[in-house]
């Protein structure tokens, strides 16, 4: 599968606003037909990256290629991509039905029947000004456009604001079902990492404008562990390992370490009266992006 041409190719991409670097030397490529998570803290550069992928902003240096082409003002490329932005604005008096009626102009593979079905699932009022819809209803509209666009590259930027847990799971389930039927490239930017982690095949993590991680979700899962016990015992166990996080409570310590533990490690830990607990996907990303050490070292340690 990896022999295919990448659907997204980003090389040495940087973007500065005055003297602030929003993105710095970001390089990655995505094979077609994957659900990829774009993760990172606020201000990490996620939205900047997505805006450049969709031709809405220009690189200060480096390049973006979608289907091998520059997306900027490229209608052939733009018809095949859909960007659902949290900041989407519509003209005054625009109703949800106007948005859906106009969508076929922008998306070559728009499926109107699927959109109608989704309007029912999300209980979206069609004849009300978009500006008067609740935050959750506006998000639902974005999700409906994103799913029904059936675009070869669909990018969701925090699509769930104001959506309750039921609506979010409707989104996840619908995304999964439709993706299974019609594989395409989905880039999903989100803070709710634990909610979506099982849906992801690949993960990109940005931190302060740099690409911290670019790897399969499967290889990231279980690539860190939390060791807890008496501080002295914990410290001797984790010596020489990559420490991601350390908490202490009196004489007790919990230390998160990178890398997979072997069966022998587990036996040694049991013998030293240490508890080993898995680290959730979300916690791992939090630990990685709050560290002060330079990014490349972390990525190479977790990668093995």
């Amino acid at each position, binding site marked *: 599968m990896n022999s295919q041409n990448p659907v997204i190719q980003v090389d040495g991409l940087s973007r500065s606003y005055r003297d602030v670097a929003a993105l710095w030397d970001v390089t990655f490529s995505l094979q077609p037909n*994957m*659900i990829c998570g774009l993760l990172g803290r606020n201000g990490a550069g996620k939205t900047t990256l997505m805006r450049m992928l969709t031709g809405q902003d220009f690189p200060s240096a480096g390049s973006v290629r979608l289907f091998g082409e520059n997306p900027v003002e490229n209608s052939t490329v733009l018809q095949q991509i859909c960007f659902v932005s949290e900041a989407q604005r519509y003209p005054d008096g625009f109703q949800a039905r106007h948005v859906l009626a106009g969508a076929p102009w922008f998306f070559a593979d728009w499926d109107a029947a699927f959109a109608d079905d989704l309007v029912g699932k999300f209980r979206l009022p069609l004849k009300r000004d978009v500006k008067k819809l609740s935050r959750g209803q506006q998000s639902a509209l974005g999700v409906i456009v994103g799913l029904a666009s059936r675009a070869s590259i669909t990018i969701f930027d925090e699509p769930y604001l104001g959506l309750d847990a039921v609506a979010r799971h409707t989104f*996840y*389930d619908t995304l*999964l*079902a439709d*993706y*299974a*039927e019609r*594989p395409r490239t989905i880039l999903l930017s989100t803070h709710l990492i634990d909610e979506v982690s*099982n*849906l*992801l*095949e690949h993960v990109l993590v940005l931190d302060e404008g740099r690409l911290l991680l670019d790897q399969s*979700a*499967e290889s990231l*899962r*279980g690539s860190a*562990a939390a060791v807890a016990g008496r501080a002295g015992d914990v410290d001797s166990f984790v010596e020489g390992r990559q420490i991601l996080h350390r908490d202490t409570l009196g004489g007790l310590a919990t230390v998160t370490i990178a890398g997979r533990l072997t069966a022998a490690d587990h036996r040694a830990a*049991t013998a030293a*009266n240490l508890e080993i607990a*898995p*680290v*959730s*996907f979300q916690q791992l990303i939090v630990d990685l992006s709050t560290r002060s050490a330079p990014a490349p070292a972390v990525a190479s340690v977790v990668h093995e």
Partner: protein
Amino acid sequence: MDEARPIFQQIAERVENDILSGALSEEGQVPSTNEFAMFYRINPATAGKGVNLLVEQGILYKRRGIGMFVAAGARERITARRRELFVLEYIAPMLAEAASLGIKPDQITQLIENQLSERETR
């Protein structure tokens, strides 16, 4: 899902459990990769990896254009492999815990016998 282990392994184990319990019978059809993905809310590629693991082990086999089926003798093969793991995954940790609690070997034997007779009278 357990955070520590790859999801595809957990999917494969759940299918094996269903074969052991008889929920999936030998020569019976199993759900498609996409159905597994939907049911467990996981990426279809991950579900596919779990199913393929069982194909490689001869637990499942593909019928082109029809779907995936449980191989004859699958139950026997799963049982044999799990018996090998029984010592490693159950007996060894139990003995380690017993040692740390100061439970002596003859007491362990006694405790197991008590449990067995309790189960029989139930």
